[in-house]
């Protein structure tokens, strides 16, 4: 639908975007503030970046968070892709309703409930089979995979539905083995969806505080846990500096992803053009 945009709608849009971006812009500006009191301006300075870079605690948290996010994104993409394939391509199978329900529920489940129930599971497992011996990297990663795979499955399902099945059917008719069809046709065509799924899982993991707080153990602080423990007590200029770095990093990544998608689309259009010319 494309009609004219009334003044009222334009004003609301401007107001909404200001509401979105002003707090973040201020956060960035105050990170360059010399003063120890965040809202009191004391002149431009990179002092808090220095403080931040010298903190070993921060570096450890960054390393742990990145490690968890990488492992999580990879496993969640594999499991989510398998789950998406099963939901879209397998027709009816035993337990499909339950499976579908378990795939959607993590998306809407309140984090406190997911976190609490996973912690209880880990403790029960430890009592019964002695694993996981201690909570930290392993338990946080498992928890993150569990909710991330649901997000990946949503993306994969959408992509599979959009792709249609004609190419796979053609390949089967031409004598390709199902496994070959999967690896030579379905998975390559699914790749863009899997990449978006991987990125989403990576971001979700880096962002999670509540579930990680429940299932972590002593000493294993992810970056959000560290940030949270500091800002609970009030404003801190070094956290502003950290926030600025994270916001810039995300902005650059998202811009790159957008550019990549733009060029891919251009190339596809070009390919299509060439293909059409070939047909004629």
């Amino acid at each position: 639908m494309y009609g004219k945009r009334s003044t009222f709608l334009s004003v609301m849009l401007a107001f909404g975007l200001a509401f979105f971006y002003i707090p973040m812009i201020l956060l960035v500006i105050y990170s360059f503030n010399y003063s120890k009191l965040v809202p009191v301006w004391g002149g431009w300075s990179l002092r808090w970046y220095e403080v931040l870079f010298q903190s070993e605690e921060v570096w450890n948290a960054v390393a742990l968070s990145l490690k968890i996010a990488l492992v999580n994104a990879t496993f969640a993409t594999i499991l989510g892709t398998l789950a998406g394939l099963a939901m879209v391509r397998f027709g009816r199978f035993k337990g499909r309703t339950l499976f579908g329900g378990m795939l959607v529920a993590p998306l809407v489940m309140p984090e406190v409930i997911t976190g609490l129930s996973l912690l209880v599971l880990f403790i029960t497992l430890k009592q019964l089979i002695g694993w996981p011996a201690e909570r930290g990297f392993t338990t946080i990663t498992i928890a993150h995979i569990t909710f991330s795979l649901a997000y990946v499955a949503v993306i994969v399902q959408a992509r599979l539905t959009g792709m249609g099945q004609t190419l796979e059917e053609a390949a089967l008719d031409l004598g390709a083995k199902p496994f070959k069809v999967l690896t030579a046709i379905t998975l390559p065509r699914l790749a863009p969806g899997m990449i978006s799924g991987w990125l989403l899982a990576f971001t979700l993991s880096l962002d999670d505080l509540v579930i990680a707080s429940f299932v972590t153990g002593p000493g294993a602080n992810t970056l959000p846990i560290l940030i949270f423990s500091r800002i609970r007590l009030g404003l801190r200029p070094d956290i502003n500096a950290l926030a600025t770095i994270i916001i810039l990093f995300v902005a650059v990544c998202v811009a790159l992803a957008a550019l990549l998608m733009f060029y891919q689309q251009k190339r596809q259009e070009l390919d299509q053009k060439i293909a059409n010319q070939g047909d004629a």
Partner: protein
Amino acid sequence: MSDTTQDMATQPADSQSSLFRQLARRIQSRWRSIILFVPYAWLLIFFLLPFFIVAKISLAEIVIASPPFSNMIEWTDEGVMNIRLVFDNFIYILTDNLYYRTYLNSLKISIISTIACLLIGYPMAYGIVRSGPVAKRLLLFAVILPFWTSFLLRVYAWMGLLADRGTINNLLISLGIIDEPIRMLYTEFAVYIGIVYTYLPFMILPLYANMERLDNTLNEAAADLGSRPMNTFFKVTLPLTIPGIVAGSLLVFIPATGEYVIPDLLGGGNVLMIGRLLFNEFSANTDWPVASAVAIILLVLLVLPMTIYQYFQGKAAEGQ
């Protein structure tokens, strides 16, 4: 193009291909069970099983041990299995004034926040839909971008704005509008701001997706028949966007009800919300049976909106 390839493929070797297909199907059925088994088992163990354990603990008594709850099944000396279910936790929660008030307050805060998101998000989504193709892309990008930055840091940004000596108070004082800072941080107002700020994109995106599919000729037809824009909006556009309104509202309402970080950081100790109570019950008091019962009641409260959401999503998927 795909049609022609398929025709060419099916014409020769009919009997061979049916035999091959049978074989292929058999191999595929094996493949299928392997592909299905891994995520299925994962979700059963790490998603479904934990809920049963929580439900079990909610029916136990607190004991001084590790883990701090009693066993549901006990074997007596005579070898008789003894199942003990304790509903005390639920009775305690439902009759205790604090829990009762906290549940109600969570519902109140998330309902008001959802309405606020709808009032701000609806015109924004409509404005995006009615923009030109380039502006539309940029605006959509601007709405999604905050979504990718850290949720925690976005809440933190508001701490800086709302604090007693924060940006807003400093600005108002320097403009001479107020003499004393207004207390905004650590109030319920701050929690509303935080929830609306965080969950507004969840409202805008489903609304946008819904409005984008609307047929503009309906509006034109209404205008041709003499309907004024306001009248057309309320009689044509608004009813057609109800699926978007429902999806967006539930996507805000459900996570807002169980929210922990926002009431903790922006509400301080002054705002009662169930997610925060649950977290504190668990970490500070270590009263696991009561915390589990709190979680079960929260889940029961949210099952209805979650089911409605899934129903609408299913219908939307069928429609596509």
